[in-house]
């Protein structure tokens, strides 16, 4: 589904992505882990097109999307949620998702018909809200939802663009235990229905959900394997888990 090949990116002297290659298989939940500053955020930016890579290629579903601008990557079927909640605060929850549906429904040069009465936007939007358990919040102004609900809304919006792959940038960040559990449930529901690239700090979540894991250290991918194999990989233990237990 996704093939990243010898990707480089440097910011001045700092090598944020250093000859990074890995593959994500269709239908997998593929997690990317790594200590702070390992280059996860840069990688996400490169995948979505917000950061231009210095060299290397990104093959998505057989197409090279390296030079493709942000809004067209979404059209290729790559949807993302953000590390910092990123929704339309002053629109209703329903409107938020309806906009995402609209984004996928071709051009928006419709000047006359009332969009809030268009069934082909509103109905699917409600269904996506149902998947993430927010249908009861449809009429609320999105800015007034709780933090956990914001993240759920983001997932609904990402799903609404009908993606082949979902890029989730720390979906559990800042969540309480109960909210995290709800999010894990949502991801389990989605598992194997579409490919998910998950960037996450919470190791429990990663090892519960992921089919495969890539470990990033200083911009390099030191291993890509199943959770069990990663757990046993001595290099990973040394570079990553060692530091993690040091923090703990």
């Amino acid at each position, binding site marked *: 589904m996704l093939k990243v090949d010898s990707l480089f990116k440097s910011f001045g002297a700092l090598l944020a992505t250093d000859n990074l290659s890995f593959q994500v298989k269709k239908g997998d939940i593929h997690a990317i882990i790594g200590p702070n500053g390992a280059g996860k955020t840069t990688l996400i930016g490169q995948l*979505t097109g917000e950061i231009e890579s210095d060299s290397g290629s990104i093959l998505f579903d057989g197409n090279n999307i390296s030079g493709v601008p*942000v*809004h*067209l990557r*979404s*059209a290729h079927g790559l*949807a*993302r949620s*953000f590390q910092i909640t*990123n*929704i*339309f*605060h*002053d*629109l209703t929850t329903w*409107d938020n998702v*309806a*906009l*995402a549906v*609209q*984004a*996928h429904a071709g051009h*928006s*040069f*419709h*000047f*006359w*018909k*009332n*969009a*809030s009465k*268009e069934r082909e*936007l509103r109905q699917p939007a409600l269904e996506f809200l149902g998947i993430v358990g927010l249908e009861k919040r449809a009429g609320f102004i999105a800015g007034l939802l709780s933090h956990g609900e914001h993240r759920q809304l983001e997932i609904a*919006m*990402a799903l*609404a*663009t009908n993606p082949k792959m979902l890029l989730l940038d720390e979906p559990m960040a800042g969540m309480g235990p109960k909210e995290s559990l709800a999010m894990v449930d949502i991801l389990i529901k989605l598992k194997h229905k579409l490919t998910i690239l998950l960037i996450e700090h919470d190791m429990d979540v990663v090892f519960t959900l992921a089919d495969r894991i890539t470990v990033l250290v200083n911009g390099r991918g030191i291993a890509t394997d199943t959770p069990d194999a990663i757990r046993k990989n001595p290099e990973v233990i040394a570079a990553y888990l060692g530091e993690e237990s040091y923090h703990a």
Partner: protein
Amino acid sequence: MKWSPRIIFIVILMLGLGVVPLLADYFGEPFYTVMFSRMLILSIGAVSLNLILGFGGMVSFGHAVYLGIGSYMVGIGTMHAVEDGIEWMANGFLQIALAIVFSALAGLVIGAISLRTRGVYFIMITLAFSQMLYYVAVGNEKYGGDDGLSLYMRSDFNGLIDISNDNSLYYLNFVCLLLSLYLSHRLINSRFGMLIRGAKSNEQRMRAIGFPVFRYQLVAFVIAGTICGIAGVLSANQTEFVNPSVMHWTHSGELIIMTVLGGLGTLFGPVIGAVAFLFLEEFLSGITEYWQLFFGPMLVLVVIFARGGIDGMLVGLDQWWSRNSPVKNEEVD
């Protein structure tokens, strides 16, 4: 529709605007027809600005340019009609058509360059473009230069409407205002409008879900300019005079003030704002020669304390009303 103080206020305002010439004639004060006519025209300008400023979040500081373009279409046309005897150039339909074409073109060029920038740069570059066109008008001696053009006749609408009469012109303005309100109501609730509002709320997100934001914003920019260009045609007919100061940057500032004073991003806000602005001007300048001494600080206070403008206050009144209304409570039960 549920009746609330805000709705009632807006209905009274619009109905009131509809009968101004009748009342003015009845009381023998035709001056008020002219004054309210100006309010209507500036309302159209503010409604069009509100499309991009209030709903789209694009702070254009050069919107008066389109008033100028529309005005000069009338001024130039009428001048040739009167001085060179080319009668068809005084035709109002033609002038409106030309105003639409040239405003749209100007909007396209200005927007295409300005929308590449954001924030304060956008404000400044729209301002710069309006100053550019201002100086074009000032430097153009053939069409009056700094002194402008006096119109010896108003536009001719093939005898369908005779706007040489102030009352007919008033109703032409009124109908145009209603049309612009209806148009913007349809626009902001359409898919296009959703997109524009979404881009105001969170542009990065709009791109991430796959919208090419720029081209939609550009179209909104052009539409707003075009509507304002039509207001320019009406404005020239109203004042029977065209000069460059109509597009001076302070005039653009006043359009922004009207829009914000009334209530950004609400349908009727700009109308309320334009009426309130001209009322204040009239009222304060009646009291003292130094009226801006009071108007200036008032503006500062409105910005600091009344963020939703007058419409925002009405919404607050509505909320107070629904809390204290027994009928409403029963409905909730």
